[in-house]
């Protein structure tokens, strides 16, 4: 079970993800994030993984899908606060984080 809550500021949108991100959870998260992006059209979308306790490659698909989508709208995506288990998955997918 995963959840997301949003904090918006001018030009930016941060999605705070919590729980377990698998293929099942990713489908709902995708819809929620895309709906917020469509409303707010941020220049910078940040996905925060601090509260994520599990993530498989479905999370990578979620990140790449959102990155393409925000890119098509002229914005950018960043990832923050990835715990070790999430970072291992990002490394495997060659996704860079700060």
């Amino acid at each position, binding site marked *: *079970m995963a959840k997301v809550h949003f904090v918006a500021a001018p030009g930016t949108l941060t999605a705070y993800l919590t729980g*377990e991100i*698998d*293929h*099942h*959870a*990713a*489908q709902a998260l*995708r819809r929620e994030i895309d709906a917020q992006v469509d409303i707010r059209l941020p220049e910078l979308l940040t996905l925060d993984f601090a509260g994520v306790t*599990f*993530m*498989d*490659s*479905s999370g*990578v*698909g*979620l990140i*790449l*899908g959102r990155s*393409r989508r925000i890119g098509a709208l002229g914005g950018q995506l960043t990832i923050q606060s990835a715990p*070790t*288990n999430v970072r291992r*998955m990002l490394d*495997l*997918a060659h996704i860079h984080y700060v």
Partner: protein
Amino acid sequence: MPKLVPVNQTRVTFLSRSVNEGYARAVLAAFLTQLDPTVPQLADIKTAVSEAVTNCIVHAYPGTLGPVQMDITLFEGGVVRVVVRDRGVGIEDVARAMEPLYTTGDPEERAGLGFAVMQSFMDSVRVASRPGHGTRVTLVRQLERRA
């Protein structure tokens, strides 16, 4: 390698609904507690099994639902074997399906990394498939002894 002696075994079968991905991980974690795995070891095995189960759910039964079976066997010496199988459409070209980034799913949303993750997190990954009959994925991991 000496012959593996099984010490415990469990089997669950569930429908190929995506909500059961979490169920499969919960069953796995509960069964492995008897080995007292470290947190990273348990995370690795859970992730690999989640990938295998997700493959069944996404690919095995297009447009319908079918059974997914998971067998977990613990062997002497801390060896864990998880077999995930379905009776779905099967894979025509297993070698190709296992290539990183290859996916027959939605390329916008699926990373095509499932088998790469399984291979990275487990000691061995074997895939047997017959088109029209189903697929069996066998994952093995030796747990290291705690320091």
